[in-house]
């Protein structure tokens, strides 16, 4: 096995594009996934998430652009890269007439002799040791997902690519899956998790790229994305109109919205909160409430997609 280059990004794409006829499914994607994080690839259904993953894994060729996995350029370095990558695309599929263990043995045979000793540990880790001798067609969806994870572990992966892994799982299964992801990150592995579930990505991932209509519209850490437009404040004062005028004239204030009872203010510079409060009070405006608010990823997602819809 070739030594994996130590690059800061485990996935890097430049201008990656996939077209089916005249239709561009993935358009000019520049994606950078940092090493050792859980990275959410977030977008609505049909946004091109699975197609991007299929290109990265060599399941379908790219129309144009370049990409690398674990520092190996693709498709030339595909074998070296994928030797340390585990992946579940859409739903994990197995030979139903074989047992869980036999299905893993088949993949171990393909991966190489180093994978065989990992089978028992992988089954144990996902809690399937007791059912490893049963035919997979008797497994529940959750068990198949866990067996899919076990199959990924046969690569002792530096990178796991999981495409919509929570689909169809019950709340307990989702909780369990989230636990797997976090434990893998703690071991220094990188997880790329594609999903249309905002809440899931927010709870599970450290970094995120939001994709829409085949294009990445924003990417960064979850914290960066929540506060990328500055600090959000909720302000309640005794004279809303005067306060609004005063705030609107301030260069440090990006946006002031009035919902009737309170003002929602976005500060471009979070350091000016206390100055703002002082100026309001010195202007004779009584401040009843001044509360910083953390924007959720959902708000950011809606902002970004709304902006795109308005621009279209």
């Amino acid at each position, binding site marked *: 096995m070739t030594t994996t280059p130590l690059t800061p990004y485990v996935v890097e794409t430049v201008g990656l594009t996939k077209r089916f006829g005249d239709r561009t499914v993935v358009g000019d994607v520049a994606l950078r996934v940092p090493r050792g994080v859980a990275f959410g690839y977030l977008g609505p259904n049909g946004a091109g998430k699975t197609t991007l993953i299929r290109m990265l894994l060599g399941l379908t060729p790219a129309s144009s652009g370049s990409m690398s996995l674990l520092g190996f350029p693709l498709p030339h370095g595909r074998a070296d890269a994928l030797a340390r990558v585990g992946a579940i695309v859409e739903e994990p599929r197995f030979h139903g007439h074989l047992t869980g263990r036999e299905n893993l043995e088949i993949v171990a*045979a393909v991966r190489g002799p180093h994978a065989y000793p990992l089978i028992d540990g992988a089954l144990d880790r996902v809690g399937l040791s007791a059912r490893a001798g049963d035919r997979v067609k008797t497994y529940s969806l959750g068990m198949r997902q866990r067996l899919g994870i076990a199959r990924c572990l046969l690569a002792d992966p530096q990178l796991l690519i999981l495409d919509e892994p929570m689909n169809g799982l019950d709340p307990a299964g989702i909780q369990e899956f989230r636990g797997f992801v976090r434990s893998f990150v703690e071991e220094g592995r990188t997880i790329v998790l594609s999903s249309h579930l905002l809440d899931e990505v927010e709870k599970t991932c450290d970094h995120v790229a939001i994709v829409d209509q085949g294009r990445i519209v924003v990417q960064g850490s979850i914290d960066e994305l929540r506060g990328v437009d500055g600090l959000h404040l909720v302000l309640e004062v005794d004279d809303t109109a005067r306060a609004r005028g005063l705030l609107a004239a301030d260069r440090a204030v990006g946006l002031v919205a009035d919902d009737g009872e309170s003002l929602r203010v976005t500060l471009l510079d979070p350091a000016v909160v206390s100055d703002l409060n002082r100026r309001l009070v010195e202007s004779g405006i009584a401040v009843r409430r001044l509360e910083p608010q953390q924007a959720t990823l959902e708000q950011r997602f809606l902002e970004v997609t709304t902006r795109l819809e308005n621009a279209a």
Partner: protein
Amino acid sequence: MTAYALPAPRMMGADFLKLRRRRGLVAVLAMLTVGAVTITYGTIEIMHLVDGTTHGPAGGVRHLGHGVWVLSALGAVAAAIVGSFASAGDLDAGVYRELVVTGRSRLALYLARIPAGFAFLLPFVAAGYALAAGASVVFAGSNPAPDTRLLVVTGLWTVLQVAFYYLLAVGISSLVGRSYTVGIVLAWRLALTPILATISALGIVRELVPGVALQSLAPAGLGDSIRQGPVIPMSLAATAAVLVVWAGVALAAGGRRDTTRDA
């Protein structure tokens, strides 16, 4: 070609496992080979025991030919079924992409199926032939019994026929999928080949039909008992070339499809 592009022995073992663990396939294969031969010789021998003056013994050279005719015809059916499972089983189960994402070359995945299918199919054919050969000797009675050389040559010829149709099925199945393959191979082997062989107007073109080439290799010692239409004499080199080209083209086309398809 790097070592990673070649199938490892364990990959062949894995493909063998996928076939061996299909109980229905094992049962069908056993019926088409061992079962068919048992029924053939059993029926003839029972008829002989019931009415020995009208029906001769089940053994002898002539009935070896009949047994091999049954085995090679149904062996082609078995070859088509096993070849289609071996070739398209991963794709049908949705597992093919799971194997591709390991980074192993698609060509290696494809090539591993060939020896695995042989290892699964040919023991059944060999067992069926062993039964036929044994019955031909044991039940020979007043009929001339086949000698060892004839038994060996006939056995090899039977295996060659089944192996050829297996290779054809592997290639075709990668191209058109499992469900169509059995129909295509059987239509070709059981219907079109005898028809083409009897159209004398085709002349030398008939030699390009693999069934005709296989028939030209039939052991002379079996006489007319295994004839399926006119025997068109062909040189050994021409016969080998026809079989190699047919199998090679089918496998190459199937391999090309497998290595370029969206997984």
